[in-house]
């Protein structure tokens, strides 16, 4: 059977699944065409896995993975090692003094800062900056990047396929012998990232306010980028500890999609990763979010035009109701025939109105979120009323069968389109294996979404989309 006849069914059988001896899971999809290959390595470790007071650690650690190893990024690791310890001590003294707040001695801070700067300057002489990235890029790598979410951390790169072996060579090296050098400078970089994405960006600011209100107990309420005061106090020891507990091969999934041979990839990965030992993963209980007992609202102030977010708690995938929420998302906000488009955007109430299921992660019960930007003279109040009236319709009227059929057709054609991208396929395979423990989920998804009935939508909308389960955040200009 060729893809052209049944691209979906043919594809599932083409995925080679293999666990290395150390527990690292490989998912390989051979694809001919251009001589390229995409790698996605995901660790089931995200910001939900941080301890209280250490917010931002998972993400900062992701940055540290680019600092090299005992052989990459250094002129002389043996000379570096004692200096790294001295830098930690100097940074600790500085943090201790700074954390005294108003009682801190500003002269002492200056002296300690100078000491840290001097040590860091000395350390610089032993470094080969950006060497890890240079090795990849010199050989033509594209899209080298990494990202951290609430649930997981991913590392991605695309290579010309004749050089695919660079991947296991470099990745096994940084997993076996990472050196978290230049930690305190990278912490400053992340503070700038926090300012850029959250403190000085209207969307980021609203999102952070919204989630912190919606989750009062579960760590989904804590920003992945980290709270400013936590970030300031993170140390290299914290990062070393996070690595030991989470960056184990038995906590990783690797998806490889492109012009490679699966048996060859498996054989070489066994060889390169042989020196990376499995670890016992911490079984840390994560605080559950109690049922919400009434509407929550916040008005965040920022110098921009208004926008809003509204969310409802719900179970996450693979719960059967989650398929219904995926369907609701599409009915309300997919394309020009969607209900929000016709009744809100075309009526000039807002320039955008959208629904998004599955936020801010999928390992734990999550939310369906609605949002938008009102169009003057309408404000957040008018947009909120319009969104709620569409939500009410879902609770009171059965969705016509043709509307559901349309969504199913769209989901199916999306699926086929997504097969065209190596990186897109690799990302889906790795993500669903790492987060839901099942890379086949996207295939089951097609059947799941097909099974949703108009009655399911009525029931689910009535059960979850209620005032007492609602969190609303408005962004408004300060008066």
């Amino acid at each position: 059977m060729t893809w052209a006849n049944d691209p979906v069914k043919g594809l599932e059988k083409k995925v080679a699944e293999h666990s290395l001896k150390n527990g690292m899971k490989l998912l390989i999809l051979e694809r001919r065409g251009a001589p390229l290959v995409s790698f996605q390595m995901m660790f089931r470790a995200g910001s939900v896995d941080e301890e209280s007071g250490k917010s931002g650690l998972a993400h900062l650690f992701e940055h540290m993975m680019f600092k090299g190893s005992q052989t990459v990024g250094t002129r002389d690791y043996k000379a570096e090692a004692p200096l790294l310890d001295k830098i930690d001590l100097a940074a600790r003294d500085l943090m201790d003094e700074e954390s005294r707040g108003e009682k801190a001695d500003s002269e002492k801070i200056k002296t300690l800062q100078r000491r840290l700067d001097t040590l860091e300057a000395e350390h610089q002489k032993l470094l080969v900056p950006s060497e890890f990235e240079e090795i990849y890029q010199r050989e033509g790598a594209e899209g080298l990047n990494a990202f951290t979410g609430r649930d997981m951390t991913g590392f991605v790169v695309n290579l010309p396929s004749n050089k695919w072996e660079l991947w296991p060579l470099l990745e096994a090296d940084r997993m076996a012998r990472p050196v978290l050098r230049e930690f305190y400078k990278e912490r400053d970089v992340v503070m700038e990232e926090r300012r850029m994405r959250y403190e000085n960006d209207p969307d980021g600011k609203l999102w952070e306010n919204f989630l912190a209100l919606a989750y009062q107990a579960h760590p989904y309420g804590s920003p992945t980028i980290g709270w400013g005061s936590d970030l300031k106090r993170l140390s290299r020891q914290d990062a070393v500890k996070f690595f030991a507990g989470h960056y184990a091969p038995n906590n990783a999934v690797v998806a490889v999609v492109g012009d490679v041979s699966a048996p060859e990839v498996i054989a070489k990965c066994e060889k390169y990763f042989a020196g990376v030992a499995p670890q016992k993963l911490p079984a840390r209980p994560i605080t559950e979010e109690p049922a919400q007992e009434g509407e929550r609202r916040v008005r965040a102030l920022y110098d921009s035009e208004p926008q809003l977010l509204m969310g409802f708690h719900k179970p996450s995938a693979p719960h059967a109701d989650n398929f219904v929420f995926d369907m609701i998302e599409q009915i309300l906000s997919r394309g020009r025939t969607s209900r929000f488009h016709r009744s809100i955007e075309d009526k000039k109430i807002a320039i955008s109105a959208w629904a998004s299921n599955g936020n801010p992660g999928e390992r734990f019960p999550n939310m369906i979120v609605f949002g938008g930007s009102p169009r003057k003279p309408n404000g957040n109040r008018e947009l909120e009323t319009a969104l709620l009236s569409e939500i009410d319709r879902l609770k009171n009227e059965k969705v016509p069968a043709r509307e559901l059929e349309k969504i199913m057709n769209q989901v199916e054609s999306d699926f086929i389109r997504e097969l065209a991208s190596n990186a897109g396929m690799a990302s889906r395979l790795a993500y669903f294996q790492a987060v839901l423990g099942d890379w086949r989920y996207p295939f089951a998804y097609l059947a799941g979404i097909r099974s949703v009935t108009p009655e399911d939508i009525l029931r689910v909308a009535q059960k979850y989309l209620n005032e007492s389960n609602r969190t609303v955040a408005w962004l408004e200009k300060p008066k």
Partner: protein
Amino acid sequence: MRQLKLASALLVLTTLSWAAPPGKLDFPPLKYSPPKIERAVLKCGATVFLLPDHELPLINLSAMVRTGSMFEPADKTGLAGLAGSLLRGGGTLTRSREEMDELLEFIGASVETGMDVESAAASLSCLKKDFSKTLGIFSDVLQNPAFSVKKLEIEKAKVIEAIRRRNDEPFDIARRQYRLAIYGPSHPLSRTPEIPEIRSISRADLAEFHKKYYKPGNMMIAVSGDFESAEMIRSLDSAFSGWTGGSVEFPKVEGVNPQMQARAGARQVICAEKDLNQSSLILGHLGIKRHNPDRFALEIMNEILGGNSFTSRLYKEIRTRLGLAYWVGSNFSEPWDLGTLAAGCQTKSQTLGKTARTVLAEMKRITQEEVTEAELKFAKDSTINSFVFRFATPHAIVSQKMSLEYFGFPADYLETYTGKIRRVSAGDVLAAAKKYLHPDKMVLVAVGNKKDFDVPLEEFGQVKTADLTIAE
């Protein structure tokens, strides 16, 4: 029909064996000949590029029409953009927009149109089985747009609200103020629509714009997917039968003000005040036009200065060593008129001055000293070795071919590209930097909370405060 001879260009790799920490590898040569692209001229006069690919049961088509916002009258800024979105969004003479939406979305297909500065775009994507239906709509949209007044009013309302929101994101303000300072208020690369202008645009303006430019002889099509070329040409001929015309009289377009080019000696500083704890910074000036033969040396220079996202001098200095910014980089543009060369970043208010000084120092250094052999070799190797990513998907291959012809690149542009990069020397990079990069004559734009800056902006040149008022 002409076969691309790219294989040789790709086979010559700079490194076949690699030895450095943490190991040694021998890479086999890359065996790849990009697929042949067929070029044909349809009966209606449109040029078409075809690349059949039977991997998935899909068809993707992109078209470019020779027009763009550069040709709209300066007192109707925003007209071309509205025409671009309303072409599809305003229905056709025989089909309402709602009818098209229902039909396309029900089969998971799309037909979209849009506008760029130097071209107009139209695209189609569908399952193979729905091609004829989707192509019917695509061709109707290009030939017979209705520009429904009701839809125009909705779209205008959206554009007006977007104008009201243009000062929400700090880096957007910086970009707009930068272009304004470089090109003045009415050049196509800087002008932005204002609310009163948008209000004044009528259905007749859109219809006239369409009539003037949307002619088959003024259009190129790139199509990839599950089809046979001869059959595809027949389908396109039939879909566009009866559509004629090709010659367009293009209006004169405002060029860069020579005074802006010749601005001698001094730096110009623009400050846009916004109450933020992080400032956005852009530093730059005019650069080169498309087809400038020095662009290869300039590309390598930019790669070393700030173009490469992890290894450039600006990245290593400002991000890695000093921890001053998350994002920092440089780029250069090559439009029909002079483009710009610029660097930008975002840093906390208290380090704005320190960061600007560092950017300027790095710019100055690259105009004074040759880059090292190691830097040069890395920039060339990475550019040449990643060249194959331009052929990532069949649609990328065929639409790249169309766009190179659209913009007048020589037919052997891709075949000779890596050779031209390989020949760039350290001396060429220095010469290009000296000729095109002038840190002392730049425009510096800073958006943020001026009172918290570590250095008075006057240090960098004469300061002008930006007017961010939005006229209703």
